[in-house]
């Protein structure tokens, strides 16, 4: 059962021929093999890894999306709105859309809050009678202007860029806010 022992092993390979240039030649061949192997690995590996990680740096173009006419929002009210986000892939299903809380401050003044708690991103709920946003996850609470009222959130609710375009209110698609910060429009 000791077949393996009979396999020629390179423990002491060609010791008699090792004089002269042999060790150098072997070192060279080993280095050559490592080098070639490394080259091939990089040749394929770099583009593959870059492709897998590309979401880290690729930016999507920002678009203004209408969320309704100006008249459909009452002054002093906060309502949830939906809009198509910056990566509406055909197979994304409901994930094509994002939500925001739109508050009409005055005649021509709107605020679009992100729905994500600045603590860990859970969807905050607007409680119209209490006039506060409350987070179901860890009890974060925000005032109607998005400032932190209680709980663990480190920052106010982040805001999306919002504008009035003709009769419509428009929100600019932006990356998901991370820890209460929406990346600046580029």
């Amino acid at each position, binding site marked *: 059962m000791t077949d393996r022992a009979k396999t020629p092993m390179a423990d002491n390979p060609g010791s008699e021929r090792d004089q002269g240039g042999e060790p150098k030649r072997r070192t060279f061949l080993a280095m050559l093999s490592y080098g070639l192997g490394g080259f091939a690995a990089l040749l394929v590996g770099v583009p593959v890894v870059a492709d897998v990680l590309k979401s880290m740096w690729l930016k999507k173009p920002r678009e203004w999306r209408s969320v309704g006419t100006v008249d459909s929002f009452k002054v002093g009210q906060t309502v949830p709105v939906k809009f198509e986000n910056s990566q509406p892939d055909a197979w994304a299903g409901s994930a094509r859309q994002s939500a925001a809380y739109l508050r009409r401050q005055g005649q021509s003044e709107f605020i679009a809050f992100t729905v994500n708690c600045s603590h860990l991103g*859970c969807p905050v709920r607007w409680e119209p009678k*209490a006039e506060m946003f409350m987070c179901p996850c860890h009890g974060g609470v925000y005032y109607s202007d998005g400032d932190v009222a209680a709980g663990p959130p480190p920052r106010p609710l982040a805001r999306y860029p919002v504008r009035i375009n003709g009769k419509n209110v428009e929100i600019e698609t932006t990356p998901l806010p991370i820890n209460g910060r929406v990346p600046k429009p580029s």
Partner: protein
Amino acid sequence: MFRRMNAWLEERTGIGALIAPVMKHLVPRGSSWLYVFGSATLFAFILQIVTGVALSFMYVPSTSQAYQSLKFITENSALDHFLRSVHYFGASAMILMVGLHMLRTFLFASYKYPREASWMSGTVLLFLTIAMGFTGQILRWDQTAIWSVVVGAQQAGYVPLIGGALARFMLAGETLGGATLGQFFALHVFVFPILIGALLAPHLWMVVRNGISEPPRQGKPVKRETYKQEYDELLHREGVPFWPDAAWRDVLFAVLMITVIVGLAIAVGPPKLAAAPDPTNLVATPKPDWYLLWYFGVLALIPHLLTPYVIVGGPLLVFLGLFVIPLFAKEGERHPLRRPWAIGSVIIVVVFIGSFWWLSTWEPWSPRFEAPPLPTRVVGQVSPAAETGAKLFHDRGCEECHRIAGFGGFRGPDLTYVGNRLTGIEMTWRIANGGYNMPSFGSILSSQDIDNLVSFLETRKPKLTEGN
């Protein structure tokens, strides 16, 4: 006939000769039932591969269709339903067994020389197992899953400098989208299992090479110079072949485990799917599965200013702390009774995790959105102003965090008998100005509202004379 075939194959492959020494290697006598958790983890992993591959026959990893395919798996066929259930309880078993395996190797100090690398690879395997659990939960792709991705991305976002990039990687883009689920599928089905396999190979090989650690004895410290020789002598003196003298326990325990998994799968069924995934449906309470639930509690209750440090530093410190243990304690006593610090730290960790687990079952920090208005029997016979106050207590959200006579939330103090503790003026001041974890209602409620609320709260006192 069979023996001749076997001999023919063996002569050409030599696989038997390769495996025999592994199976027959000598192990110390007295390797008791405490040594079965490692192999149980391995069996659970194999079970996960088998059931996972089978599930992938039915599952559609598409953001728009995954939920439907999972509903189909869960509802349309008893066998699919069973399969998903086994996969869930198998995951739970694997995490439980990893935990017990780690607990045993830590308490017996099996990580000391020459088994340091076994422990270190095990630490990475532990985190990979948890990563498998989390990514698997995401594949359910229901409301809870998609919001858990967001929560995961936010946590990654707390990492200094590269946080934003890590968060975008978790989302596979700028927001939840078509690429998100595909990436989690690839991680769960290919990347993490392959990494686990790649680390499992040396992890298991080292068991054969170094042998399992003998049961520790008091006053018998590990010394690097003499350990291997002593271990060899021990084996030759009283060692028994692993197969079948020790292996039968592993087999019996694993069979028991699998029987329990199958039993639970039939009796309990797979975890319920939440509502269909929709980033614009804002009624969602993302929550990790049971093995990470306690950590969710930690994040709610730590002092708020520490949040970024705990989210980044916590897991990192746990990983590094575990990883380097064998580098700092490579020699010396192994018996737990001679290592009070080891026992102490295990107790602290168990109590810590245990209490946060218990808290996480009722989440006292979460507002109770569904709390009903206070019933008349609780409000009692009070003035009209106080009656209005009782209504406001529910409508204006007080009840979501405060409790009265068993109704409402737990975040703030219980107000059942607040009339005994605070005067009307003190209450008015607190409601208007707020405090730590208490919003200030001065700009939200009219002074009339506050007066009504206070006159209601003033009536909250224990009844001196009971009605009958």
